[in-house]
């Protein structure tokens, strides 16, 4: 037997295990889609750009190395105004947002999963509604409720009915931003924590109870440590999402010149200061990277215990007793204000012919079904008659459904690969790379893909202006969420379940199809649904990539916001929400899974 033949056989043996081959394939593709953009991002901060030529004139050779951008952003008045102040603002707003996400998310999760609270199902489904809404719904509604003459704006709802003029700090700035973002983003905290809570066998808590632990010390010493990874992930996701958000800081910050890093990046890129704008993006990346690193360190060791085995998980509900109804009522009231009121208010506002006048005589359907009338919005027809709007609706639906399913499926596959080869460096690297897009602010991600796919590079065609580019950017950007959901679902399925199928002769693809995917179906549906909802109402990611031929609902809505057609943007937002809700429920009905229970078992 010669050495060559032995080596050849060993290679063959290795290739027979497609999970290893797949890990390599994913790694290479992701490297191009994630790592290359990151390198070009960093490179942009270190060279002269075309914009610099126009702004500074001489001494600029486009594409040549320079430390000019970094020097400007590190010290001096420019750095203070454009970097340090927005940084402090961002950290302030993010801290408030994350605190709110954690508090609301875990409180609601505990209430729904672990107590016998009345109307738990209703609470559970209402709790995730804010997540379905576009992120700017709350801020638009907030503004239209609180705005008044003290901030030089038309009357809002509050002032219209009570005559009370809210002070400026309640209308603009960090407080309204943190509150509206916290109320928008807490549902994923709720989903993650309730997933973790569902998987706890209540015997763990009962044994502590028998050992004489009080309710609070069971909470502190048993329940909290088990759900700690979920809380940590929630905080991390909260940081990444709220730091990269553009809509809310733009609506509630820009009028008062309160800049955060994301709005600052946007304005720098718009004024063609990419070099300096991307430095802020690098800073955002570093902050998020630090969070990711801490997250990895904390949970890698303890994530490995399987919870779906041959036996079921027992769970016992905490009795609320006489407090049950009051708690349920307060919770529902709160959810009503957060989930139902803003949309109802925007609908109402879309029916007012002249903005700021809430009297009955001012109501009308013009912005929905009206024919072109030069008296309103420069003759723009109502949205249900508007061909541009209808085209955008179709594009949005197509994009989010295709992107969601594709991303969900890839997430499960990667989750499988990562979970199976937990110890191998390839899978570790794969997991880490797949998380990187989460750290890149959407607006920057869009800009990067614009440069990456503007021209043909080797075998990769120029995709700018195509629908495929929108799908691609959606899938890669949202991959972290589905991979996360995929890894945790796959880890919950004990390896023995698959090994039994190996022994019985099921090839890899059959194992995946018959054992692993059915057992993790709720993770897949939850992952896909999150991507679907997210991309349906994603604005910052697409705003630089769309062309008139493939415009989506959000970018069109933002155009109406920009030109100040409040009722149009309100009506579009309502339409968008209705679409998301209908799609979500259609998929739920089809898959018979509940998004609220999605991240847990079946």
């Amino acid at each position, binding site marked *: 037997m010669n050495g060559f033949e032995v080596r050849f056989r060993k290679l063959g043996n290795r290739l027979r295990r497609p999970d290893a081959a797949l890990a390599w394939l994913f790694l290479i593709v992701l490297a191009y889609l994630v790592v290359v953009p990151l390198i070009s991002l960093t490179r942009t901060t270190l060279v002269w750009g075309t914009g610099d030529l126009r702004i500074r004139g001489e001494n600029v050779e486009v594409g040549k190395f320079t430390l000019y951008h970094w020097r400007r952003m590190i010290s001096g008045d420019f750095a203070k105004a454009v970097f340090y102040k927005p940084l402090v603002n961002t950290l302030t707003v993010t801290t408030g947002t994350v605190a709110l996400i954690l508090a609301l998310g875990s409180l609601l999760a505990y209430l729904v999963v672990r107590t016998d609270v009345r109307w738990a199902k209703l609470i559970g489904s209402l709790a995730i509604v804010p997540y379905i809404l576009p992120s700017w719904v709350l801020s638009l509604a907030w503004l239209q409720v609180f705005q008044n003459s003290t901030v030089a704006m038309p009357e809002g709802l509050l002032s219209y009915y009570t005559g009370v003029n809210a002070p400026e700090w309640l209308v603009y700035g960090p407080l309204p931003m943190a509150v509206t973002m916290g109320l928008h983003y807490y549902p994923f905290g709720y989903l993650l924590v309730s997933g973790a809570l569902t998987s706890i066998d209540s015997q763990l808590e009962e044994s502590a109870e028998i050992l004489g632990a009080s309710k609070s010390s069971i909470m502190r010493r048993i329940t909290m440590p088990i759900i700690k990874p979920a809380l940590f992930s929630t905080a991390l996701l909260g940081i990444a999402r709220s730091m990269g958000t553009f809509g809310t800081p733009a609506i509630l910050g820009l009028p008062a010149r309160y800049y955060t890093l994301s709005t600052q990046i946007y304005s720098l890129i718009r004024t063609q200061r990419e070099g300096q704008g991307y430095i802020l993006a690098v800073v955002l990346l570093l902050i998020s990277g630090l969070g990711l690193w801490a997250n990895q360190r904390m949970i890698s060791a303890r994530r490995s215990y399987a919870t779906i085995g041959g036996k079921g998980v027992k769970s016992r509900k905490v009795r609320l007793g006489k407090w049950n109804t009051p708690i349920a009522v307060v919770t529902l009231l709160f959810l009503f204000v957060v989930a139902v009121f803003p949309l109802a208010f925007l609908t109402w506002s879309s029916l007012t012919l002249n903005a700021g006048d809430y009297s009955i005589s001012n109501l009308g359907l013009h912005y929905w079904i009206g024919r072109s009338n030069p008296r309103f919005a420069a003759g723009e027809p109502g949205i249900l008659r508007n061909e541009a709007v209808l085209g955008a609706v179709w594009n949005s639906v197509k994009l989010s459904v295709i992107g969601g399913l594709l991303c969900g499926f890839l997430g499960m596959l990667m989750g499988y690969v990562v979970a199976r080869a937990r110890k191998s460096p390839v899978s570790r690297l794969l997991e880490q790379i797949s998380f990187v897009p989460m750290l890149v602010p959407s607006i920057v991600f869009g800009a990067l893909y614009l440069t990456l796919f503007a021209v043909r590079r080797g075998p990769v065609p120029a995709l700018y202006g195509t629908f495929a580019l929108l799908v691609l950017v959606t899938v890669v950007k949202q991959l972290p969420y589905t991979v996360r959901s995929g890894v945790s679902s796959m880890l919950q399925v004990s390896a023995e*379940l698959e*090994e*039994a199928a190996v022994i019985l002769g099921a090839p890899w693809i059959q194992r995946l199809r018959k054992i692993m995917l059915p*057992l993790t179906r709720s993770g897949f549906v939850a992952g896909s649904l999150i991507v679907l909802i997210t991309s349906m109402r994603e604005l910052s990611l697409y705003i630089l990539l769309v062309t008139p031929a493939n415009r989506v609902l959000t970018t069109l809505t933002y155009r109406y916001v920009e030109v100040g057609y409040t009722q149009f943007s309100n009506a579009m937002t309502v339409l968008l929400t209705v679409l998301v809700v209908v799609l979500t429920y259609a998929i739920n009905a089809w898959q018979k899974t509940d998004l609220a229970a999605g991240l847990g078992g079946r």
Partner: protein
Amino acid sequence: MKAVRLVGVTKGWAGVKAVSNLSLSMEKGEFITLLGPSGCGKTTTLRMIAGLEDPDAGDIYIDDGLVFSASKGINVPPPQRGLGMIFQSYALWPHMTVFDNVAFGLVQQKVPKDQIRSRVMGCLEQVELAPLAQRFPSELSGGQQQRVAVARMVVVSPELLLMDEPLSNLDTRLRMQMRASLKRTHQESGTTVVYVTHDQEEALTLSTRIAVMNKGELEQYESPEDVYDRPATQFVAEFTGNPQTNLIEARAARTAANSEAGIDLEVAGKVIGHAMGSGFPETVVLAARPEALMLCDRDGPGRIPATVYATLPVGSSVLVYARIGGSGAGASETVIRAGRGVRVEANQRVWLQLDWSQVNVYEANTGRRLDNAVRP
């Protein structure tokens, strides 16, 4: 023809050897138990036979066919090794009914539908689960789940059945019943079984041969009787004891006065026996099961003085715990199985008489058994 043969199999993770240089062969139709404490490498060995784990070195043969060879780069995938495996957690698929779980292997083999039906139901009848065919695993009791796991592997009629602690999740009574049913299944089918357990009683009752493993190495590989009566090493003696094997340390001194007897064996300063032969180590360990010790109420030649610590009646007999060499440090605790009529009290002084035909002698340093003649 050997059902399974391992030659020099080695496996380790991150520098820690789980199994080192293991060689072992099993005849067709045998019931082989891999016995040892947790972490001894028994499950790893089983998984390597199954093909779920790849050895770092060595060859594995099944039915005389080479299925794995590190040096030749051969690695036959698990399904082509013609074996079945029952997992500790049973690994029943929670989203499939009992019927679908059992049918899975036949579906993979593309057996016609009507045949699948009759074979699955036949198998379920054998394990008395036919009426529960449409249930889901979570709706079954532990014992029923275990039987489904057995049925799922038996239905594809493998030549070789691997079991990884299949009874460890059951309660004692059920475990006894399942042992009987496993033994019967084995005898009826004639399948070769490799069975992993840490329960020495399970090993003794089920096996044709037991492979006792410790720290990745094979300590002894013989019939249950030999393993029980003549443990090859001190570790085996200790591990197979129930409730425990008494290990009594003895000093060996060559006597000038009585050169014919050769060596005196001293326990607690008293000569209790003699040994012959050269190269006898200075310290040895006498291993005696509780039934190899007799309780006496007065001193005599070869008797070891001890103090009663506690007496535990277990129905058919009484277990007497006694300490040799007083009650302080250095005292060694022994268990004596006495007749149920024996009356002793705590702190009472007693003398222990060894039944030398049931005593094995081990070298204290190495734990190797010494086969020198030892007599009173």
